[in-house]
Structure formats: C-alpha cells, structure tokens
C-alpha cells in the first residue's frame, strides 16, 4: 500500500484528507484504485481518460515525466504526490 498526497485544491474530492492510501504497482494502477473510490478526483485531474497536463505526478521526489510516466513503478513504501500548479500569493 502506497501513500498518495492530495494537494489542497483537490482535498474536497477525497473528503478533505491530506493523504490517502492506495494499492497498485504502477502510477497508473495507484491512480485507478484512487479514482475508483473517489470519482470526483478523477473528474478534476483527468481529461478524456488522460491525466491532465497541468497536474504533475511525483513518486517520492521524482517527476514521473522524467521516469516512465504512468508506468513508473510504485513500491509499498513510496509516496505518490499529485501536484497541480498553485497561484495564490498577493490578494
């Protein structure tokens, strides 16, 4: 079981949790497991079945874009981080 960190803008889709446990040996499998239990999250971060380009996915501290994408392996002690851009600052 790996841990998925949910960014603040998406927490309402998982009932407010900051982290959620998920099973799966790859990023794709972990996300599928997560989406099955939290369909609202799927609606927010996927677009026609693909993960939106404005959401970065990290396994531990590595961006999966520079590894094997959604096929990047996920171990039981790994943390998957979903990270969309955050803009707030001034007002």
């Amino acid at each position: 079981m790996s841990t998925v960190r949910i960014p603040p803008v998406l927490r309402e889709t998982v009932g407010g949790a900051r982290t959620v446990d998920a099973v799966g040996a790859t990023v794709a499998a972990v996300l599928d497991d997560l989406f099955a239990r939290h369909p609202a999250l799927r609606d927010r971060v996927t677009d026609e079945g693909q993960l939106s380009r404005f959401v970065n996915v990290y396994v531990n501290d590595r961006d999966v874009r520079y590894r094997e994408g959604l096929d990047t392996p996920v171990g039981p002690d790994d943390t998957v981080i979903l990270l969309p851009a955050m803009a707030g600052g001034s007002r």
Partner: protein
Amino acid sequence: MSTPATQLREVSAEGALDLASQGYRILDVREPVEWNAGHIPDATLLPLADLPARAAEVVPDKNAPLLVHCAVGARSLRAAAWLIQNGYRDVVSMRASLRDWRQLGGAWEAPQELLTPAQQLRYSRQVLIPEIGQAGQRKLLDSRVLLIGAGGLGSPVALYLAASGIGTLGLVDDDVVDESNLQRQVLHTSDRVGMPKTESARLTLNALNPETRVKEHRERLTSENVERLIADYDVIVDGTDNFDTRYLLNDAAVRLRKPVVHGSIYRWDGQVTTFVPFAGPCYRCMYPTQPPDELAPACAVAGVLGVLPGIVGLIQANEVFKLVLGVGETLAGRLLMFDAMSTEFSEVKVWRDPACPACGEGAQQ
C-alpha cells in the same frame, strides 16, 4: 679602514616629507592589516617582525637612504636601530603619527570604503557573517530587486529586504489597501485603507530604512509593460495571484535572463522555488500547460492563513540574498513545499525540460 659609525636619526613628519622629496626610500614596518587600511603610496611594506628575514631581499643596497615609519614612531625606531646595526648607513625613523603626515599633505592611499560608518553600524550584525562581510553588504546595497505584488507575499519579503539593506526595491501593484488585507499584509496599516499599496509600502519601508530606494510601479503586469518593468532589476520576486501573470513573467524573465524567486500560498500550504534562466528549470518546465482558473483560486476566494505568507515570503527573501551575494545553494531545481497544518517541509525535484517552449532546445537563447 671602516666607515664612521652611523648615527640613528629621528625626524618629525615635516622632516620626513622633506626626506621623501629628496628620494629617500620609504619602509613601512607596520602589520599588513594596518597597511591595508591605508598607506603611503610609494612605501614598501616590511613588518618589523619580518625585518631580519627579509631586509636583504627587500633592500639589497646598504647605502640606500631609508625613511622608516610605523603608526607613531616606536616600531620604526626599533627597525631603524636594527638596520643600522646590520650595516645600513643612512636610516631615518619618522617620530610622528601618520595622521601628522597626512595633515601636512603627505601622499596617502586608502582603500575605497565599501560602507559608510553609519552603514557599518546599521548592518553590523550581518557584516560579521563571513560569507557577507563589507563586500557582501555592498552588493546588497547596490542590488535592485523587483517585487511583483505588494500584498501577502510581497509584505514580508519587502520588509526584510529593506531592513537588510537591499538598495532598491521596486513594487508592482495597482491595488489599494483593503481592510481584509491587514490580516496578513503586514506592510499596510488600518489608517491606510484605500491608499495605493505601493504608496503604503513605501511609507512603511522608508520608516524602517530611509536609505532604501522604493520605486512604485502602480500598474498591473501586462505583456506590454513586463519587459520594461523587469529590465532594470537584478532579481524578481513573484508573489502574484494568478496564472496569467506568472506565465507572462516567466517568459519575459527567461528572455531577459532574470532570476525569479517564486512563491505561492493557499490556505495552509505554501510553495517556493527559484528559477534561474538556462541554469535551471523555468516555470514552464515545471508546468508546461496553464491550468484552468478553478485550480487557482486567489486568497480572496479560497482563504489563507495569516502567517503563511510570512513563512513562505521569508524563504523567498532568503533566496534573494543568496542570489545577490552569490553564495550557498538556492532552490533552483527544487520545489519546496510547506504544510502549515502538520508543520512539514518537503521537496520535489524540478528538471529542465528540453522541450520547454520558453527555455528548451527549441527556444531562442
């Protein structure tokens, strides 16, 4: 047959000036640290303690006329005595202070003072830090930093940069102070509600440090003004509230090769990183596609913890210092995240994307 024993002579500053004009070679027997603080331009440094070991090398000709001086005339008298004992024939010691020498118009060379006495006092606690020193403080005083936004993040950044002696602070903001800002925008005060934020910021910053040059840019960053606004600055601090401005700033900063210290906040969470064009990733390397606005609610919509801009902003200010001083490791290539709810910092790596439309291989360098 031997030459007659040489008498040791001492002269006043006036006498020393006269001998110098006659071509006497000047030996300064003080320590290097004293020499560095100021010295007679034609003099040769030969500290008293080094005399036995180095005299023959520095002054091979024992008939050369020598004028020896120190700070007041004590060490030079001992040096002159040693020289005469060791066969030098024409040695004169100046029995006067170097101030007397200078007051009589004697030539003097002092290093250019990096800091005024007032600056040395004001910034003394950071001048003491070996990585800063007077030269580093001078860099800070000569540096120009532009803050995009004089609000949540801009407030702590500006306050600490001004306090620390960053010379010029530019503020880009077209907003006025609102009562709801005061919970976190610590540049502003209750009696300034309705005042332009840049003006309120200038009043606060100049009350803190009258030496800081505060430049007000009462406008919103647009594609028309962005290059003009950032061109004159060394470092840009991005604390804006929307994606349009962040991408606009990123692309212009990459074109003009300006480092950008990026911060963003949302409720209990903050993020900071530093973009150094072509040396590390840029904002588009990290997020190639601009997200829809519903993923970027401003503080006005989503809410933000009052202390959060303070924590994130001061990490940004720390990045500015390192960029200006050229010391340490910045957050270039790392995104630092702070979770105030659990008091946890974590970071992920950010890579330069070869396909980045702003700084990648296809982009014009």
